[in-house]
């Protein structure tokens, strides 16, 4: 191996790609998209209370309408004096979102109430109206049953579950399992997507050199293994650049998004007869985020790189065996299958990171990059499991590299038709 040659290949791969429009756009658009996403979420949480839906209540029993109005004066209006037809007309004229007729049957029997409405408001409206009427009707029933205040209090209980984690050091800390489950899943998905997209870069790059017919000129100056290594390193450097930019943009945006959102909400709540505490509670959960430990980011980078190395050489081998972009589908299957399997297991793992399935499959080299990082983010993974995963991935990497180099060496010089798996086997044996 000649490092000068590898470096020259690396340099070309990196520079031509980094200058390409596709790369520049993707690198810019992802943080912009992320900022837009945060903006939209903040916007929604600030403005959602503004949209009001007015529901007219025609209460034939005249016993529950008032409690509903008490519960949410902005939403429920007592129209018990009006005939049903006027309410219908008001809904049609869009003066009201809808109305509910409450009769004695609804309280004494288990007959469902009917909301007649214009159709706007969606599921969120329906579920909140349902919860509201349930609550008042239950209260009314309890009142009629003349139960003691103690029993009423029992019905009012809402027991939550707060969780705190006890670490190995014996300190119990705030538990952010939900948050980290989402982080873990996202990290898994990011690695999943990254392996495919950067792998795809490599496959297309190799095919391009074949279809351009430049490969033989290159092969008369560079050894196939040097070319392969240079390519993988070049695209790897590209991945690091892109992710570096994204991570910095992400951290920067998160850092300013919190305060900006807070000040926006402050203004908003002050206008609406301010209550700072309420605003705080409404802050979307990911802006109020627990700090992601540096060790997690380091593990993410390690598994990202190992996953990339493990798969990228195989993507190059596929490219060398194919004769055109469209021919890669069938050859791609042995690579896509394990990544897809890992992805599906991950959908299980993020909810139960310590199950036998999760633990075992997170140590299978082809699954580790996706599953182990998900587990590390969510749960306390024993060091030995992480070490085993890394060790096995390194060993497998040397294996895939050896295999790919053999296929690549022959593949790049065979034109005319795409190779099948039989041919690949022959090339490996050569």
């Amino acid at each position, binding site marked *: 191996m000649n490092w000068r040659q590898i470096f*020259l290949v690396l340099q070309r791969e990196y520079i*031509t790609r980094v200058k*390409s429009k596709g790369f520049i756009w993707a690198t810019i658009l992802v943080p912009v998209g992320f900022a837009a996403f945060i903006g939209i979420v903040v916007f929604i949480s600030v403005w959602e209370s503004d949209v009001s839906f007015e529901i007219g209540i025609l209460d034939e029993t005249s016993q529950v309408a008032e409690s509903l109005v008490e519960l949410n004066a902005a939403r429920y209006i007592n129209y018990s004096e009006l005939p049903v037809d006027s309410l219908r007309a008001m809904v049609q004229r869009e003066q009201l979102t809808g109305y509910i007729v409450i009769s004695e049957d609804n309280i004494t029997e288990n007959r469902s109430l009917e909301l007649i409405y214009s159709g706007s408001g969606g599921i969120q409206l329906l579920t909140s109206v349902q919860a509201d009427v349930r609550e008042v009707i239950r209260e009314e029933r309890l009142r009629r049953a003349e139960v003691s205040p103690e029993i009423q209090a029992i019905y009012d209980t809402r027991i939550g579950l707060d969780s705190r984690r006890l670490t190995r050091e014996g300190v119990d800390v705030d538990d952010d399992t939900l948050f980290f489950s989402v982080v873990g899943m996202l990290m898994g998905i990011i690695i999943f997507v990254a392996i495919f997209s950067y792998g795809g870069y490599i496959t297309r790059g190799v095919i391009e050199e074949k279809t351009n*017919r430049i490969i033989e*000129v*290159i092969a*008369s*100056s560079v050894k196939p293994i040097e070319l392969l290594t240079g390519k993988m390193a070049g695209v790897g450097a590209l991945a690091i650049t892109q992710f570096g930019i994204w991570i910095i943009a992400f951290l920067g945006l998160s850092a300013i998004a919190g305060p900006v959102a807070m000040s926006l909400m402050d203004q908003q709540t002050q206008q609406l007869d301010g209550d700072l505490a309420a605003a705080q509670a409404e802050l979307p959960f990911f802006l109020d985020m627990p700090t992601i430990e540096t060790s997690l980011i380091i593990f993410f980078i390690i598994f990202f790189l190992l996953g990339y190395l493990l798969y990228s050489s195989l993507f190059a081998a596929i490219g060398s065996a194919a004769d055109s972009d469209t021919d890669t589908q069938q050859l791609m299957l042995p690579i896509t299958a394990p990544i897809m399997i890992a992805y599906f297991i991950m959908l299980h793992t993020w909810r139960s990171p310590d199950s036998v399935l999760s633990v075992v499959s997170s140590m299978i080299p082809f699954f580790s990059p996706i599953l182990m990082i998900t587990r590390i983010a969510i749960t306390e993974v024993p060091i030995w499991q992480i070490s085993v995963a890394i060790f096995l991935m390194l060993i497998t990497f040397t294996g895939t590299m050896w295999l790919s180099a053999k296929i690549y060496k022959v593949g790049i010089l065979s*034109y005319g038709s795409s190779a099948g798996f039989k041919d690949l086997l022959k090339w490996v044996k050569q």
Partner: protein
Amino acid sequence: MSTIIVEHLSKHFGKTKAVQDVSFNVEKGRITGLLGPNGAGKTTTIRMINYIIPQDEGTITINGLPVSAKTQKMIGYMPEERGLYKKMKVGEQLIYLSQLKGMSKDKAKEQIKYWLNRFGAFDWHSKAVGELSKGMSQKIQFIATIVHDPDIYIFDEPFSGLDPINSELLKQIIIELREKGKTVLFSTHRMEQVEQMCDDICLFNNGKMVLAGNLRQVKKDFGKNTVLIEFEGDSRFLDELENVRINNRSTNFAEIRILGDLNHQDILKKAMNHAEIHKFQLVEPSLNEIFISTVGEDNIKNKEELLA
């Protein structure tokens, strides 16, 4: 000492024996042609000389060294399947390729400038190769092959796919290279190109080398036993000739190789009985004829292509 020495070279792909026990030398400062129909093993041999694929058996020595990454840098190679990166700019691309051949960046820039100027192509420097016409990118390909100023040049089927202007340009380059004392090896299945340019030849058929040597000497050894005849009239007399092989036959021309001890005067007499003779000439056999009589008519793969 010969520049390239090939000894007992063999290569097989699966059950196909692409090259079998081939030995030949390429002499310094001369143009050597590898001849033979497609599939004869020329490209495989050339790839082994370029250290692109390893040989199964035999040795290749270049300037006294066995083939290696080091000998690669002594060679400028233009493969039959040619191409460049379409999206890369001409200048960057040439710098990249010459750096891979071991040149420093500054030296490469200087040489590229010289060659682009020489081919009237200096303003292409910042154009992407994809924007160039086919003829223009062929010129860039020549520059990519010669820019690092090696001692040895190998062209595989160099004239296939070239437009007439570039064909002529490449011929000039090759002859100019020889004048500078460089060594040139090229392969072709078009015999007439060899006749015009080569000093030495090396005939391939079915993976084996069947004949090698100095072109003049080879022709001399075959003797002046070929008749070129130009006539007007009935050409059926040609069919009556025995013990001859007729190449290049048309309505008023034929190239007749005398195989037995038939006297060429007898052919003339026969011809005069049937047609008016415009020209009758006794010459050395053409390379085509030499090739056919060496390997035997039945052993030639793709014969039509060879004679095309």
